[in-house]
């Protein structure tokens, strides 16, 4: 099946009925009345992995493969809790990990528990370059 393309964009206009927030509430049902009734939460205003995959297909079709790949990495991070995201970011900063193994372990955690192979590969790639460039070093 051919994926989405630039003709399908903006998805909120062409596929409004299929776009849903994290809990499955349709975009069109996220109304001010629903907010006032207390049935809309912040979760309903969160993007889904599916929406990011859709945007990745649009980006690919527009000739922007690196942007598409970033959306695919993002799709993997949707389910990753905020604290784990922030600590992974922290671990990738220079000198936070003192040994390559720390990044390798983090990659494995994200690959196995959060089904995030692209993110895991990205971290492993960083680990190898950090090792070669001496980034696993004392900074503070």
């Amino acid at each position: 099946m051919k994926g989405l393309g630039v003709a399908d964009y903006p998805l909120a206009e062409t596929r409004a009925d299929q776009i849903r927030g994290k809990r499955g509430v349709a975009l069109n049902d996220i109304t001010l009345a629903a907010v006032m009734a207390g049935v809309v939460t912040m979760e309903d205003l969160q993007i889904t992995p599916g929406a990011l995959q859709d945007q990745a297909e649009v980006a690919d079709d527009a000739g922007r493969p690196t942007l598409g790949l970033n959306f695919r990495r993002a799709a993997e991070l949707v389910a990753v809790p905020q604290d784990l995201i922030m600590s992974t970011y922290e671990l990738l900063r220079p000198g936070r990990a003192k040994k390559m193994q720390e990044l390798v372990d983090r990659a494995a955690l994200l690959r196995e528990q959060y089904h995030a192979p692209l993110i895991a590969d990205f971290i492993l790639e960083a680990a190898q370059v950090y090792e070669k460039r001496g980034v696993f070093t004392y900074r503070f």
Partner: protein
Amino acid sequence: MSETSRPNRWQRFAEWDERPLRLDRFAREDPANGFSAFRSPHDPKPGIALSAGKIAAMDGVLAHDFDMIDAFIAAHHLDRRVVEEAMAIPSETLARMLVDMNVPRSELVRLAHGLTPAKLADVVSKLNALEIAFAYSKMRARKTPGNQAHVTNAKDDPLQLAADAAVAVAYGFDEVETTTRVARNAWSNAVACAVGAAVGRWGVLFQCSSEEAEELRIGMAGFTSYAETVSVYGTEKSFTDGDDTPWSKGFLAAAYASRGIKMRCTSGAGSELLMGFHQSQTLLYLEARCLCLQRGMGVQGTQNGGIDGAALTATMPGGVRELMAENLIAVWLDLECASGNDARSSESEIRIGAKILPYLIAGSDLICSGFGSILAYDNSFNPSLFNAEEMEDYLVLQRDFEADGGLTPLAEHRALDLRVRAVDAISAVFEELGLGHPSQDMKASVVMASGSDDTRSYSPGEVAAISAAIQGRDITVIDVIRALARRGFACEAQNLLNVVKLRVSGDYLQTSAMVRGGRVLSAINDPNDYQGPGSGYRMTEARRQDINDIRDVLDQDVVLRAEAEHQAGEAARIAYPVAGPALQGAGADEVVIGISPAFGLKLFQTTAGHKLSEVLRVLVQGIESRGLRARVVRFRHTADTSFLGLSAARLSGSGIGIGIQAKGTAVIHSAARLPHNNLELFSNAPITSLEHYAGFARNAAAYALGEAPEPIMVPTRGEGMGSRYHARVALIYAIETGLIEEGAAPEEIRLKFLEGKR
């Protein structure tokens, strides 16, 4: 000239010393120490080597020796399918393709996926400033230009932030960026700007520049919709000194997208130099590395064009051209470009105006990143290239060049209404959420104030408590939307909800996305399709009219209304009854004063503001003071000063006449002289005094008496040609010429002065 009397200085240099320009200090080109925009022996030669489908060397560095930046670019930016084809094209050819309207943008973007940093820098360095601006206009990703505002103040006062955000929205900014004076105030600032930006219309994206982790948390609470402070650097050492790596920033890019938050990176010339790790390489080459990194990470866009290093870059030869060149690389790499113009890079207003012009004409995704929509002293990012002080200058530049700079003039009453509404809205939110109870005095002071010096509102310390409460109580945008709606701000509640809803579909995560008229507009559904005149972005007539609608413009009705205010007063002072056709005078003791068609009928004062009755009175008195008679004649066949004067002279028994237009321009003519070859001319009506007119009349009488008087000089320093007069003078003159009747006979006027002594 002897040595003792030889002056030690030409005074002109002392005068130049006093100009604002001399406050700018300029740096000598010095590649070894990092001070070179385009040329350095330490820049690598462009090159690529592939081995078994892998990058074996790039820009003269073997893969084994790649630093982190090279490694990231080779792995993520360079597309192996096009790299050999693209790198084989001579730089001169690529440079010509950039400015060739027949080479489509898409083809150049395809090739850019295979170009190394050194190659990109080499190509754009071959373009002059005009070619760079043109190529930028052709290559930028989205067709419709936009603009971004800074909204901050020196007290982090949320009431003022809301009011100023609402005003920025009304001026047409597509994004609002705030930051804090006190880091703890970030939550309060974000809420205030989110609420203010929801007043009037929806669709303005907002961000609060703060520490990376905090910025992401504020975004997740729904108080911001984009981020742009994810900085990257062009040398490995400055990158790690900035406490990041290409991979940590790349991870952050994915993290923002995973939360449905739009993001762009930031980079700019001079940052490596400021951080002390420039590798003796040029600003442009280092920036090309930054930009290839950003495309490799998969961010949709960049804030580049010097940014914090813009002022330093502008001290170097070609520095401003370099800022344009790096922006061109950004759009060639198909990145959204928030093109700098966000730091005051000079003390000279001429350099400031010149800096913005190419961007204004070429257009940009976000011309400024951002424009200081608040007074310079309230800008917590430091003063921008343009600030609230210069807002109207910018609006006029748009009008001058019929260039869409993204902004729309705002009527004074509308601005005040919006400020009231925004201050009431944020106050209601504070009250509903138990965050504060702003007094009427606080609110009124903010609504009126031009800047925070004039407000009696929250102090930074009080704001810190509000900010801590928002964060500590886990208040989200849902709470704020509810608070707005409960207190009667349903429109604002809906507007804010609409912005947060953008993140569900993620449409605004695509390249160069903004919201216009309630729709996401990006490089996908509004791609730049420039292919020569008539293509690409063109203003609609409606948009052109919006831009033209600056305040306080003149037209004939305005001029006539202003003149009509003086009509009754003049009618009480003077009358111009017609006593039949004017005849040839016989006596040598008369001087004829020829007045213009609208003189005293539709126009009642000179451009200097003298009542025409007063002017005629002193002219008549001046002539009479030499024992001669003044005869007044109205000409309706011409309004030209020279012909008024010559026609008057021809009717005059003495052969000397004065011609005068209602605006005050006057001439003394002799019947014996050719047209325009007058005896004396007062061409500087705006600075001509009644004493000058009196002297002028005495001289006319002197010529009639056969004397050779000293001509009356109106001392001028060019004031009369000031641009304040041009439109009015032309409109006045059109009123005069509108009354002309071909061949109309001169009319004898029995002038009557109705008050005071004659």
